[in-house]
């Protein structure tokens, strides 16, 4: 009898806790229903239909099943190309960004003179890169060549690489022209990636700061090398942040407006008023992004969480 009572009490606390959890989440659920699900549902619905915009009758839709998806995959001249370009860029950018921003965060988290200054400096990309200012930096101003950036030869890529003419430097080294061009391209690309690292650096620094100092003191007393300190303290303690940064980077890289697939879809939507093909493109792309995100979460739970937590 006593046993039964105890069991019931435990379950009572659990159900109370889940009630509390639901209370914390409830306002957000209302918000999601009011401001997110309805517009999103409409956009998904468009991808399975044909949509006409009429000034008098408004929006008319006609259900066509998977026709839009078949069209963009089989007949659209550019979609598959854009998709592969986008995913290739993503594959090499993701590890570079995560590793580079982690290195910067570790360095900026060390105690040295001028650290506050450098931190503010490395925060600049967050302020500049997400907004209108970046557009002014990467476009021509008032019809003139923008003096601040180098526009590459195809003019669609702008490199914000400190006004250094890498191609000129490489040319003076007398390498063959193809190698020079390729190297200049990759150097500029790496510098461009720096501009995508701002948020990640801030997140990593915040994560590193939550590691209690005592852990390092204990490890010093125990005689651990800094290599061991890194593997057994720093990395496990920032593992939550690491997952956060990886997923943020995935989403940021793939869904930013300069991504080829997103650019194509936005152009279709805004210039040609083609809501059905653009919606189909986007939702197919988001499905891919979702699968990548889910795979990363799954791998993290399988490998890292088990080892570190």
């Amino acid at each position: 009898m006593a046993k039964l009572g105890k069991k019931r009490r435990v379950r009572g606390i659990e159900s109370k806790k889940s009630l509390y959890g639901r209370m914390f989440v409830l306002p957000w659920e209302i918000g999601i229903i009011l401001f997110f699900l309805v517009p999103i549902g409409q956009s998904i619905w468009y991808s399975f239909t044909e949509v006409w915009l009429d000034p008098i009758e408004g929006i008319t839709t006609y259900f066509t099943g998977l026709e839009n998806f078949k069209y963009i995959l089989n007949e659209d001249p550019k979609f598959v190309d854009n998709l592969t370009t986008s995913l290739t860029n993503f594959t090499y950018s993701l590890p570079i960004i995560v590793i580079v921003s982690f290195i910067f965060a570790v360095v900026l988290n060390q105690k040295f003179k001028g650290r506050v200054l450098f931190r503010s400096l490395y925060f600049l990309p967050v302020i500049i890169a997400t907004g209108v200012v970046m557009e002014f930096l990467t476009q021509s101003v008032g019809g003139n060549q923008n003096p601040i950036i180098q526009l590459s030869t195809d003019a669609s890529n702008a490199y914000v690489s400190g006004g250094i003419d890498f191609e000129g430097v490489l040319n003076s080294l007398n390498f063959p022209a193809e190698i020079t061009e390729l190297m200049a391209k990759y150097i500029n690309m790496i510098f461009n990636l720096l501009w995508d690292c701002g948020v990640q650096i801030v997140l990593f620094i915040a994560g590193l700061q939550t590691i209690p100092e005592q852990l390092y003191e204990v490890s010093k007393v125990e005689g651990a090398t800094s290599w061991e300190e890194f593997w057994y303290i720093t990395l496990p303690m920032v593992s939550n942040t690491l997952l956060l940064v990886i997923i943020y980077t995935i989403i940021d890289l793939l869904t930013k407006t300069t991504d080829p697939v997103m650019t194509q879809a936005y152009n279709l939507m805004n210039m040609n008023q083609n809501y059905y093909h653009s919606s189909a493109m986007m939702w197919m792309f988001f499905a891919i992004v979702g699968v990548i995100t889910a795979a990363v979460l799954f791998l993290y739970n399988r490998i890292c969480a088990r080892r570190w937590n």
Partner: protein
Amino acid sequence: MNFKSIDLKAYKNDPLQRKKAASKVGSWIFKAFRIFFLLSVGYIIIYPLLSMISYSLISRVDLYDPSIVWVPKHFTASNYTVAVEAMGYFKALWNTVYKCVFSALLEVASCSLVAYGLARFKFKENGLLFGIVLLTAIVPVQVYIIPSYLNYRFFELGGVIPFINDNIVGPIGGWFGNPELAIPTNLINSPLAFYLPALFGVGIRSGLFIFIYRQFFLGLPKELEEASWIDGAGPFKTFLRVVIPSSGVVFLTVTIFAIIWYWNDYYQSIMFFNQDFPLAVSLNGITGVLQGMGYAYEKSLGPTMAGCLLFIAPMLLMYAILQKQFIASIDRVGIVG
């Protein structure tokens, strides 16, 4: 017997001392390399800012002088006055503060609650809700901007608000001699179009903020909260008294990001407002305005750069202020661990 020399020899050959000397040299090399590394990459980052400052101060005469690279011979502040006029700077700044910054602060609060619920409490639909959080982070606002414009334009909650207006608010207004009284159903041009989503935790990049909070809350040790539970504090009191004080770093991080992303938002502001635009919109339109004022083509370079600087200056100031808090809050983190 030369005692000293023997001692010195032994000292020099002592492996521990040798290791110490080597590590000292190593740390000097490391420090020098660190500064070199930070400065060289920092140059790339600060270059646009420096050139913006340089071009904003340059007078038009010097623009054509090839001998002038960074520091102009004739300084001028006229670019700034032109930019302030072209952007309607102070009015736009006020609009940004009461529309964007306020929404950002609402979002900082609402997202933390949701994330705490997801991170600390187990309930059946927890995983599903976390999936939706990620979905809101993945789908950019441009995708659903038109349906949400219509949503705000006719904000009737499926007929609920008109019903309330007809049967409750209208008659009450009638008693007080104001039969026109009604809950507004058109949120376009009202700051509510920014406040409401932020209040419910679905504002700009809210999915990301919830995710940031969740990851940090997962890393907090549970013991303090459990102690607070045992002491009889409810979940909300625990959140206010225990969780918030020990997660200063994450709150500051999210505050900084929220303010910056609301400040930089251009797309939603131009959709949901027809007038009283925030700074991002007026900066975006500065080229056209400058042309109207007679500053076309290369003449517009100086004022445009001045405008960009005026746009980012408040954000830099905010970061400088919060950065100090950041460092102060680190000391408190130790208590938790």
